[in-house]
């Protein structure tokens, strides 16, 4: 080897390489991703810590809501049909708030994808995060890439068996913890924790843990990139969200090609070479097992680890970073045109460099203002609009509501003194976790009085009713009107309910039927 700089060279072939094609059915190629280091890797460690932290710890956060409601900050109470999120409590009829959040999540995904490509896939998707976590375990137990390949090829021995058992045992432990954390969102976490370990929890809890353990272990440990490539619909959909100004992980062949393993020797012979030394560092770190130099591919989750790997190589070689970089298709095409004289000839590395050997001024680089374009404005606008609507809906929603159902059979009853009686089912929704006394009143019907079944009071126009905390109360109310005061036929009738202490009120207009 000539030259003074040593770059480690790896033997690697992309799993989707055309050379490895098989007809019809293909066995999975094992991938042994090498540990990467660099700024993207550091950022990914951080994202992993935050997302896993949120997932595992959230159910344990407490939030005091008084004696009549659970004190778990985030809780989906299926039995009582309530959803608690810190200071927000959602009833089933307010589920549009959750639907709105999902719409926001969707639009947010479009927004992020149109600007920074598959950032969801590369950084925050649970599949990516858990695979990363499983890989940490794999490396800790079996070693880095080369050691793992060696172990994989070695015949079975006590050591190999021990290492494999240890790895799978830790994976399963993580999988159990993952499935276990999930069910804590649906019940009081500390109570359920004790119940789980004393065999007192409901069978559905154990079944859920078992299913999620199986899926986590299978997807994170055994299937990995297969999930992204073959099972997930998102790689197919996201193509519709990308345009020529979206950032994606790109191999900049306009400066990398022609690649050469022996650049010095080639240059000595007067052959032009690009920056790529064909060391395969980018291939061996790739968790998807592909070669980014083959161009944009469906398999690439844009985890950016190949950028870290190549930047390390470029640093060693003393060249500019960014042979593999986040770039837009527009910039890439511009630079390609520069390097190939608008496609007139093969890539000429000299064309992108100035006399001093540095990258030329003419090379296009990503500029932040490219983020602001109609597509992103529309996504952001839609996202923000839904968000504002949700906030508006949340702060203006009623915590005391009334629904009235008029009896239809019979529509009215003639009483012995000739007065007319109508029946109503009145539902009062007390959406705060406190007992409160409200006043139900009748309006707009001359001479009408009511009596509430189960409340022993003389007929009147207003009846005080005590509401249980955080519950719906259903009342049967009979309204009667003396015949001589009625107009006959259908008359309007309005019920109101008011909480005099909080000044909350609701009303409902219905009708009162009487003979013509």
């Amino acid at each position, binding site marked *: 080897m000539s030259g003074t700089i040593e770059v480690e060279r790896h033997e690697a072939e992309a799993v989707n390489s055309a050379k490895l094609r098989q007809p019809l*059915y293909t*066995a999975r190629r094992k991938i042994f991703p090498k540990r990467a280091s660099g700024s993207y890797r550091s950022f990914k460690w951080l994202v992993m810590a935050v997302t896993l932290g949120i997932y595992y710890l959230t159910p344990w956060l407490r939030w005091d809501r008084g004696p009549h409601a659970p004190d778990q900050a985030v809780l989906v109470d299926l039995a009582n049909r309530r959803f608690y999120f810190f200071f927000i409590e959602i009833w089933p009829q307010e589920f549009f708030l959750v639907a709105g959040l999902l719409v926001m999540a969707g639009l947010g995904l479009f927004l992020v994808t149109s600007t920074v490509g598959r950032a969801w896939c590369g950084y925050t998707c649970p599949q990516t995060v858990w695979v990363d976590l499983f890989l940490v375990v794999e490396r800790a137990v079996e070693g880095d890439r080369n050691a793992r390949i060696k172990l994989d090829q070695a015949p079975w021995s006590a050591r190999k068996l021990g290492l494999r058992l240890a790895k799978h045992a830790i994976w399963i432990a993580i999988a159990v913890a993952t499935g276990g954390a999930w069910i804590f969102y649906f019940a009081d976490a500390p109570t359920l924790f004790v119940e789980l370990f004393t065999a007192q929890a409901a069978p559905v809890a154990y079944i859920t843990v078992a299913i999620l353990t199986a899926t986590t272990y299978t997807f994170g440990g055994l299937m990995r990139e297969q999930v992204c490539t073959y099972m997930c619909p998102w790689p197919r959909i996201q193509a519709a969200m990308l345009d020529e100004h979206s950032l994606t992980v790109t191999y900049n062949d306009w400066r990398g090609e022609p690649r050469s393993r022996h650049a010095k020797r080639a240059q000595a012979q007067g052959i032009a070479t690009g920056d790529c030394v064909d060391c395969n560092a980018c291939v061996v770190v790739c968790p998807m097992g592909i070669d980014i130099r083959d161009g944009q591919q469906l398999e690439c989750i844009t985890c950016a680890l190949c950028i870290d790997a190549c930047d390390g190589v470029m640093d060693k070689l003393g060249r500019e970073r960014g042979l593999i970089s986040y770039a837009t298709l527009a910039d890439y095409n511009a630079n390609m045109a520069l390097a190939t004289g608008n496609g007139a000839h093969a890539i000429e590395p000299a064309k992108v460099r100035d006399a001093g050997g540095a990258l030329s001024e003419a090379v296009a680089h990503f500029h932040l203002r490219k983020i602001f374009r109609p597509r992103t404005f529309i996504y952001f606008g839609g996202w923000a609009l839904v968000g504002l609507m949700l906030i508006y809906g949340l702060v203006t929603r009623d915590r005391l509501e009334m629904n009235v159902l008029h009896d239809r*059979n019979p529509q009215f009853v003639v*009483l*012995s*003194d000739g007065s007319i009686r109508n*029946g109503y089912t009145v539902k009062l929704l007390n959406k705060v976790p406190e007992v409160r006394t409200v006043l139900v009143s009748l309006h707009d019907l001359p001479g009408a009085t009511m009596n509430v079944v189960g409340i022993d009071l003389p007929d009147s126009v207003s009846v005080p009713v005590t509401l249980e905390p955080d519950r719906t109360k259903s009342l049967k109310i009979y309204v009667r009107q003396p015949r001589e005061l009625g107009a006959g036929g259908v008359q309007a009738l309005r019920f109101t309910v008011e909480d005099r202490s909080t000044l909350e009120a609701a009303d409902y207009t219905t009708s009162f039927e009487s003979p013509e």
Partner: protein
Amino acid sequence: MSDKKIDDVTGISTTGHEWDGIRELDNPMPRWWLWTFYATIVWALAYTIAYPAWPLISSATNGMLGYSSRAELRTELDGAVAARADYAAAVAAAPVEDIIADEALRQFATSAGAAAFKVNCVQCHGSGAAGSAGYPNLNDDEWLWGGTPEDIRVTIAHGIRFEADGETRFSEMPAFGGMLGRDEVTALATHVKALGEGGDLSGPGAELFANNCASCHGEAGKGDITLGAPDLTDAIWLYGSTSADIAAQIRAPRHGVMPGWIDRLGETTVKELTVYVHSLGGGQ
């Protein structure tokens, strides 16, 4: 249509299918996918052995697990009966007044009674219990035989003019058409109508009423629930409120019959029906 090409960008062969210039890459399936596919076939076969599936000439295979949807329904119904056994037992044991006083028991009995009402009572009293001419409205506050829970229970249990039951309620108004003349009946009807609507009570009907009717309906025409004699002063008329309706009823009274239900439905259901009827708004 099927000329295979090597795709320029990927270097992969196409399947030869082409739609508007779009070609399909011939990528191989993952092998585990194939195994999953075989596994679903095995599963399907096993399923048809375990569960009823294959049609035979006049029936179908029963399946090794002995499952049937009818048996599952049976189990669920039994489960429902078992789940409400506590309430059912409490309703069976408690007197009607106690059931009404207890919120939970009342709700349970009202629902059960509503169901029984729909099966047994709506044919005469209507689905809203509002009755019709000749069939009393159970929502209002007039009761021929009393509107307390116990009165209602006795009426439902033993019926009215139901000869098969020795304890049935019985009343019979004589047919005055054979005893009084045409004019007298008309005068009486005029008087009775005036009782309820207000009007001249000094006409010839007053004396006729005192002599013929007051013994059951009372001097003031207020009726008597112990005799099943209706109140003639209120706004509710079982057989109509016009003078002609009233005169017809005086001449040749119609007498409705209600069966007693105790033998058919049993003690508990009768109590549940009582609670339901009492809840309709007129119960006392």
